[in-house]
């Protein structure tokens, strides 16, 4: 789990914050904090698909699954577990 979390965190920091993790908590809403926009979310999805070998279905593109590091971690855990 902690490994998942670190990999996601590293991706977000590298791709959306370009190395500056100042103020990014595991609960920070990507949307409200302006971290990810409508094209950013597609980059996040391709990363999850390639890195973890999952398929993100269209109907899974919702904030409950993707809008914070915590949400992504629990979504991934569910996908990988199933």
């Amino acid at each position, binding site marked *: 789990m902690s490994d998942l979390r670190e990999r996601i965190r590293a991706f977000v920091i590298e791709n959306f914050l370009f190395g*500056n993790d100042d*103020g990014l908590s595991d609960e920070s809403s990507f949307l409200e904090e302006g971290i990810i*926009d409508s094209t950013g979310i597609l980059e996040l999805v391709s990363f999850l698909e390639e890195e973890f070998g999952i398929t993100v279905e269209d*109907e899974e593109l919702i904030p409950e699954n993707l809008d914070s590091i915590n949400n992504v971690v629990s979504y991934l855990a569910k996908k990988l577990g199933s």
Partner: protein
Amino acid sequence: MLVHHFLENSASRLPDKTALICGEERLTYKRINTLADSLATGLMGLGLNRQDRVVIFLDNSIESVISVFGILKAGAIFIVLNPAMKPKKLNYILRDSGARVLISHRNKARIIRESLTDLPNLEHIVWVDKVPVVEKSASSRISHYLWYEVLAQEKPFNLSPFSFSLTSRSRCIDIDLATIIYTSGSTGDPKGVMSAHYNVVAAATSITQYLENIEDDIIMNCLPLSFDYGLYQVLMAFLFGGTVVLEKSFVYPVKILQRIGEERVTGLPIVPTMAAILLQMDKLSRFELSSLRYISNTAAALPVAHIERLQELFPNVRIYSMYGLTECKRVSYLPPEELSRRPESVGIAMPNCEVFVVNEKGEEVGPGEVGELVVRGSNVMQGYWNAPEETARTFRPGRYRGETLLYTGDLFKKDEEGFLYFVARKDDLIKTKGERVSPKEIENAISEIEGVAEVAVIGVPDDVLGQAIKAFVVPRDGIGLDEDRIKRYCTENLEPFMVPKYIEFNKYLPKSPSGKIDKKRLKKEGTLGQER
């Protein structure tokens, strides 16, 4: 008619109709009108005068809509800013506009804290929050209030009962300003486009006429209210007595599509990036979208292939290709029945608006010839706030006494039947994700990075973004610069849509004989003198 009469008229005609749906909340016209009255009373209690400026720095929300109308009812001018704005630009606009009041939310506290230097006019910050925000520092001369405190203020304490009344008398007439909309300028600093009440009324009336809006229309708006296209969705719906479903953004398209089904949405305004995202989704047909009556697109042209696929996916939906700019809100629309015949056209002038394509001498040119598009009508705004020279360049006297024509800076041609085709910008402004972006603003930011000797920013074609931003950077001798460092700095100092997608390091940039960076060559050749 004044802009807040849109709300007041609908509130008296359709008091119990749902006007606004935002997340779980649903507000009737009457409720919004009452809340906007309370805000106006509270703002006047804080000493707000006619035509004072109030900045709204909020995500799309119930409060952002109430603020728009409350500020207008107080006779003041509202300015909605992009919720993703960074401190430097926020500071610039607060100072440039001379705003006396800022309405914001706790989730913006950090940005606001960093933007409050040297703002002699700013007196009050109203926080949309239930608990005090820790900003109340004793040293600052800015006073802080909570939203509900301002709304709960029954009577303005420093005004006599005769000096104000919201219902019996309006504080404004229609040549007063309703809003200032900040947009990118070629100099790099944002310019505030001044809209008088009558401009907004004219534009909203014309647009709702050609969209054939009716009271039963339910509009899905996921565009920020800082963008005139997003703002007018609310204004226009309130004009025709419809309903707006307000979403914060299009980041989660599935949620938007579900909401369209749940709320039986009839109108969907989009920009090309949203179309590109929708078309990338493979199972669009699974969503219940049968309520949709029309989709409108503006900000940049939709690629023809996207128009065709959209029409295939939504055979019964009327698709409107439109063109406009903040300086006059909207210029033209293509009647949907023309879409298959001339998919590349942005159509004809909207009702009560006239356009010309002119050459360098200002003479109208014939069909097929390229010239600058000039706009005439009540929708032509009042010019740029605090910028008389820029105003004089763009808003020029017309043929008839007293009239003002808008020189759009966009090159167009007309076909034999008078339909308009966008050709190019005269200047090098970039259109990305539906936003107008000044290369200068990005160049200024990148130049601040230590080790940057020279920088040039251009737009390059991109299927999803319309144009993607590309920066050519020349590092100082012996200084190692990496892409992340530049993107990070841009992310910290610019709104997300301005962060370059591509960075290219070069040893030199092509120059014109006068020593200016030759952007035409950069655009044509793409890369040159690359270091790696």
